Every structure is written in structure tokens, then in C-alpha cells.
């Protein structure tokens, strides 16, 4: 029960209800689709770069509360950061949600709220779908990102 409250914190429920940066961006520099075949979640990430800096990032799609809140909070966390900084945040975040250590957790600010995901291995994919898709958008491949 306490694990469940840890997972569905008020902040996450709030981002699920009112996702931030939930809009299409047209035109934009980079975009990609992401799918989670397990539960049918889909997300589309839009990225606008200014040199090496993420000038704007937004998303659309549908998914569970965890994947929607993760996408919403990702856009807030990486907007204005450099691509390298964003990738570092993702590394720390991914280690945290997979339960592989949280030594640098203070570096990712509000995203630490997703720490509860580590108690639910099936939900790691939900928490990381937007991030994988963000990386895929930057790498510019034609293949959709998936969590598989």
C-alpha cells in the first residue's frame, strides 16, 4: 500500500491530469514516435534545438498516469538544458527507476519523485518511454522507439 502511494504521488496524478507542454510543434527540428507494446502507450516527442541547447520540447500521445506524468515532467526538466545535460539526467533517472542506485539523485530535481517506480519493475517502461523517444528523436532514425 505504501509502495502504491509512493508510486502514485499527488504530483504524478496532477501531471497526468494536466500534462505540461502537451502540444504539437510544427515545424520542429526533431521528432519521434514511441510505443510501449505492453500496454499500448504511445507518445510523440517534439524537440526544437538552439545550437546544442533544447530550446523547446513538447509531447502528445496517450498512456497511463506514470508514462504521461513522466513525459510531462521530462519536458520541464530538460527544457533549456544542453543535449548532453539532458542525457546525463536520463542516465541518473534510468538508474533510479530501475533500482540500480540513486547516488546522484539530487542532480535530477523533481524527477526524484519517480523513485517509487523501482518497486514496480513492470512500470519502468512506462516511466522511461518518453525519454527513450526523446533520444530517438535526437538520433533522427526512422524507426519508432519502443520499450522492448
Amino acid at each position, binding site marked *: *500500500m505504501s*509502495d*502504491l502511494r509512493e*508510486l*502514485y504521488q499527488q504530483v504524478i*496524478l496532477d501531471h*497526468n*491530469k494536466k500534462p505540461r507542454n502537451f502540444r504539437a510543434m510544427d515545424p520542429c527540428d526533431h521528432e519521434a514516435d514511441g510505443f510501449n507494446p*505492453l*500496454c*499500448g*502507450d*504511445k507518445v510523440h516527442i517534439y524537440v526544437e534545438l538552439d545550437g546544442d541547447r533544447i530550446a523547446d520540447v513538447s509531447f502528445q500521445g*496517450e*498512456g*497511463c*498516469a*506514470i*508514462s*504521461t506524468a513522466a513525459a510531462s515532467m521530462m519536458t520541464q526538466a530538460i527544457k533549456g538544458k544542453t543535449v548532453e545535460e539532458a542525457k546525463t539526467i536520463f542516465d541518473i533517472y534510468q538508474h533510479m527507476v530501475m533500482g540500480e542506485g540513486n547516488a546522484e539523485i539530487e542532480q535530477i530535481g523533481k524527477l526524484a519523485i519517480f523513485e517509487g517506480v523501482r518497486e*514496480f519493475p513492470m*512500470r519502468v517502461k*512506462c516511466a522511461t518511454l518518453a525519454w527513450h523517444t526523446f533520444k530517438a528523436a535526437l538520433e533522427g532514425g526512422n524507426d519508432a522507439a519502443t520499450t522492448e
Partner: protein
Amino acid sequence: MEHQVAPFDAARVRAEFPALGLTVHGKPLVYLDNAATAQKPRAVIDAVERYYESENSNVHRGVHHLSQVATQGYERARDKVRDFIGAGAREEIIWTAGTTEAINIVARSFVRPRVKAGDEVLLTEMEHHSNIVPWQMLRDELGIVIKVAPIDDDGALDMDAFEALISDRTRFISVVHISNSLGTINPVERIIALAKARKIPILLDGAQTVPHAPVDVQALDCDFYAFSGHKMFGPTGVGVLYGRRELLEQMEPWQGGGDMIQHVTFEKTIYNDLPYRFEAGTPNIAGTIGLGAAIDWLAGIDHAAALAHENDLLEHATRELSQIGGLRLIGTAANKAAVVSFVLAHAHAHDVGQIVDSEGVAVRVGHHCTQPVMQHFGVPATARASFAFYNTHEDVERLVAAVRRVAEMFA
């Protein structure tokens, strides 16, 4: 007038299923994922254990004692399946890994040699992916055309459209008997009659049927019938393809190897007789023996009473869940098995599944391997409670309370 049915004693039946006594997250398990796989009675678990402890050996050709015991168990299980589905001959019962493999065998070995570009295979919109993808593989290889009979907004098959889609190019019809995601029971007698009238061979996917009601393939007069052991209280990894003998005899093996041959030289191989020519390699012997034990065990169940009990549970769950604000039932056909799929207005199915799990209630969430059904209803996924006769009205109450909790959390 309906025959009066004795009340079903679910408590007595439950006691035979060790897993139904489990505690999950500190609460007694409520297992409502029976359409995915059923729990196993002690009799099945014991039969599998007994096989590995005192009968384990490879089947056929062995002269030693254990090999004979294993072969007898394996072949006796085949006879039990023949009786269970009313097949005419044991040669018509092919062991497979499950429903999926059974459909693939028919697509590869029966349909593939009989079709050319432009020929049609007729399916329905509610098929499981296992009855879609094998046909798409043939389409991509040979240029056949897949026709899809639509469902209405209750999830019932549109029979007029189905009939209209049968053409002089229709070479095969493959239809699910009971939908796993909607619970819809298809009017298979009518479907088979339509196929027979045009002399089109037909397969029924019976994976969801066998746990609920007796099947008689001869009375149905279908050409092929496919099902899995694990949904009817048997082990995973074993299933059955029933085929009419005259059709099976025309079919080439789909995979080569040991046990499916009569004679092998490097120049030429003579294939074995039915049913062995479709059973290359060492089979899932323990699985077949476990499935045989499940059939024996099911013989002690009053099917009419069990089905009436399941229908009561369906009616109870449908009535109570419908009263939850923002809950939409997906699949409301008049003729339905005990499956309740639903979505909540503000909570994704995945969140529903996670939260009801914390209350000890196991439901499945996702597309249930029926993505076209999800597209029809415009939802990415549903939560699905699927009942077996060992479920109780208390299980329904626990489900409803847990779903109410989700609705409150996401309100």
C-alpha cells in the same frame, strides 16, 4: 422451459486449487485473469509431478518400461481429448504447443498450398492476433486478400456483413468462437452453415470456449478446431489442433524431424501417419498428461451448473461496475461469456490494473492481443476481469470495491 440447474458449489471447487489460496500484498488473492490462463487444480499439478517423478521417459519406440509408461500416458491423453471434444478418431487430434501453433499449422500446411494471389481468407474484427498474423504472413508471401467481418458497437459480429463478405474467391474462413477481449460468443453454427453451403473450409479458435462449455466438433461440423490446455486448467505449452481426417490426410507436415517419419534416407523421406506426422521432435509429454488430468477433473464438474454460476458472476459484475461513474464497458453483446472489459474516464487501464492489484485483485490490462478491437472502440487498452467457475460473488465485490478506489483516486 429452462431445465432447473443445481446451485454450483464454488467453495468446494476452489479448495482444489492451491493458487486460489494465495495471499497477494497481504490480501487474499482474487484471480480474475482466467481468459489469459486458468489456475490449476491439485489433480493436474499432481499428474505432472507424478510424471516427472516416476514416469519420465521419451515416447514411442522405446522398449524399456518407462518409455512404455510415458507413451501410454501420452496416447491416453490424446484419447481423452478426442472424447472431450467429440472427435471421430484419435488420428484427428494433433498435439501442438497451443492455439497459436495450431492456427499456424493450418495456415501453413492446409491453406498455403491451396491459395494464389487474389484468393481470400475471411476473418472477423475481433480475432486474437494469433488468428490475424499467420494470415498476414501468407498475404505477404502469396498476395492473398484478408477480408475482415466487422463488429457492431456492442462487440457482436455483424452477420449480414459477414455473409456479404463471402465471395467466390473465399478459400478459407477462420473465426474466434468466443472473443477473449469482449466475451462475445459468436453464432458459430450459423457461420459454419454459411461456410458449408459454399464448401469453404473453416477453423474455429476455441481457446476461450473449452474452459466454459463442452464442445462437440462433430455436432458443430467444423473442419478445424484449435485450443490450448492452459486456459482449461491444464499446463502451459500444450494445445490441440483438431482437424477432419480427410483434410489432415491431404496436408504436408509443416516441420520435419524425429517421430514424424516412417523412413528416412538422404534421398527421400516417407512421412509418418496421422497424427504423428505433425508432431516432429520430442513433444511436451508432461503437458499432454497434465491436460489429460484436467479433462478427467473437468468430468467431475456439473457443466450446466458451472455455466449458470459464471453467468451469475457476469451479470453481478456488469451491474455493479456499470454504476461506477466514468466507467464504460467494452463488449456488451447479448450473447457473452464471463468476461468484463472496461475503461475508466480518467484512469488508464494500466493504472487500474496496478491499483486493483494492490488490493489483491488480478485483472489483465492492455490490448489483450486484439488491437483491432481496441481501435474499433477508440481505446488504447482496457482492464479485463475474466471469470472461471471457481470465482465467487465475493470476488466480484472485491473487484468492484478496488475499481471504485481507482475512480476516486483519479477523480
